[in-house]
């Protein structure tokens, strides 16, 4: 190592040493190292600045400006912040988004964990099922949305046809303001269940068998083993899955857009934050208000993520050695 770097840096370091000593020489070497690394870093760094850091800073500024998508910006002050609550239903949207998260996360997590526990054993076909369950995760959400839209169609859909066999007249599903959101949540659970299952599966695989064997000898039932060994040791996985899922759920868009025909309907019963941002910004061309909505959503997501983080950090984490 030493030999290789010395030979690579030798000419420039020697040059630097000729005129300067000690610290300046080190600074020169640092400069050379930076110069050598910069072609590798520069593209991603430019991308990071232009497409992430500048937009994140700018969204805060834009939330205090008027902009219609063309022409100059003008100062709006807190006006955007007032009007999103007054005219754009920001409060309602937040409530609807929270309702969606509540429908989605607990069911999704419990089902994913249950499937992972079932698949975490040495039986025939486990790998096959594992692969099968991941298929929806890869499937284009918009395409699946079109298909599910048809499946839930109140007259033509498979579910309506199926219920008809038993003489049941089902609800209007996506046309009903009380059923639309549960249907959207169900479709999203269908889409991401296998994906989440894999995280729990990977977590379970990491727990040493010896712990279960010891529990077995002590006479602990499988049920007890799950609560006392698997679940506590899955804490880090649980944190990861919950944080990423909650962040994702707060941003739900693709499936919801297709299932509600881009309206967030019926009425505005499924008009979540992301759809509101899209509507106010790109349909209403009031980008200042849309930016204010974005900042609002960002704050809520940050608060929830931090909350989950603290909740899990304060719980005991278990150390074990094999």
């Amino acid at each position: 190592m030493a030999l290789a770097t010395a030979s690579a840096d030798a000419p420039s370091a020697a040059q630097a040493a000729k005129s300067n000593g000690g610290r300046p020489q080190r600074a020169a070497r640092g400069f050379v190292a930076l110069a050598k690394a910069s072609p590798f870093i520069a593209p991603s760094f430019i991308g990071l600045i232009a497409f992430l850091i500048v937009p994140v800073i700018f969204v805060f500024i834009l939330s205090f400006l008027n902009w219609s998508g063309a022409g100059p910006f003008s100062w709006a002050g807190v006006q955007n912040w007032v009007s999103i609550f007054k005219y754009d239903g920001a409060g309602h949207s937040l409530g609807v988004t929270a309702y969606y998260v509540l429908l989605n996360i607990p069911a999704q997590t419990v089902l994913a964990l249950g499937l992972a526990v079932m698949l975490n054993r040495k039986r025939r076909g486990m790998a096959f099922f594992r692969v099968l369950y991941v298929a929806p995760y890869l499937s284009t959400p918009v395409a699946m949305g079109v298909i599910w839209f048809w499946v839930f169609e109140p007259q033509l859909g498979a579910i309506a046809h199926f219920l008809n066999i038993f003489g049941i007249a089902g609800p209007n599903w996506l046309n009903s303001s009380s059923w639309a959101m549960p249907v959207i949540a169900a479709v999203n659970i269908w889409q991401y269940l296998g994906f989440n299952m894999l995280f729990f599966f990977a977590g379970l695989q990491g727990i040493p068998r010896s712990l279960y064997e010891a529990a077995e000898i002590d006479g602990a039932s499988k049920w007890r083993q799950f609560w006392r060994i698997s679940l506590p040791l899955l804490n880090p996985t649980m944190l990861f899955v919950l944080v990423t899922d909650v962040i994702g759920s707060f941003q739900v868009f693709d499936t919801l857009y297709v299932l509600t025909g881009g309206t967030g309907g019926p009425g505005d019963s499924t008009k979540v934050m992301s759809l509101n941002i899209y509507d106010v910004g790109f349909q209403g061309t009031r980008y200042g208000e849309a930016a204010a909505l974005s900042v609002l959503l960002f704050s809520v997501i940050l608060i929830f993520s931090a909350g989950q983080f603290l909740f899990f950090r304060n719980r005991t984490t278990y150390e074990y050695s094999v």
Partner: protein
Amino acid sequence: MSAIALDPPVSKHGTPGRRALVRTWTIGKLTVFYGILIGVGAIFMVPYILALFGSLKPESQLLTVPPWDPPTHPAWANYPDTWSNFSQVQTDFAQYFLNTAIVTVCLTIGQVFFSMLAAYAFARLKFPGREGLFWIYLMTLMVPNIVTIIPLYTVMDKLHLVNTYWAVFLPYALGTPYTIFLMRQFFRGIPQEVVDAARIDGCGDLGVLRRIIVPLSRPVLITAALIAFVFSWNNFLWPLVITNTQSHYLLTVALANFNTGPGTGEYLNIALTGSLITLIPMVIVFIVFNRYIIRSIQLTSGK
């Protein structure tokens, strides 16, 4: 869940009658176990099968027979009709497919290549400010996509890139913090001796990257390419806002517009066929690379 809670009610060493009971119990347990797994699998597969049947039925049949009836005389015409303009409704999935393919290829190549360069610098080069810079990269992982949509649109507007292919893939084609992180972890695991040997043989940084790192990192490079490919092919919100003429639509945008455009049930055969055309590359990726996909998920959780 129920399967784990149950235990044979008798001890392992019993009378022959008891042993038979245990066997029945075990068989029953296995039946429930596989029953649940197959049931869940069926729920996962049903929409694909229904859509496949639906895409092979003429519209009139879609409105009458139950969706699970297999098509009696497969209406293959749905596919060419969806692929290029047919008389009753404007469909140009050939164009959308091409647009999506162009954008996806550019995004994937760019994201993998530039992430690789950055990951190499973070993993293998020493330069002042490296740790701090990497920390900034990681911090940006916390920014939700939706938050940057509005300002990103403004940036693209100022760059005069709205409604171009460039605008669709550029924000993701210069490397993403997530992929850089994933690759950096992998690159750090490559033994230093191998790199030193290459350097003694006269390799510079590019030589080391090309001759040592890339050949040894194929799994993580394939994983990164898959992540980029799937992301780009399925991406919807950004293409929806940044493209506004039909000639630049991606498959997802065209599909969503088509579904919301005509009335319910109208041209349903076309909508279903379009969905399946959109899914074909994902099905291929899934069949060929499922090992890598499962691996990529495990890589993510292992951090």
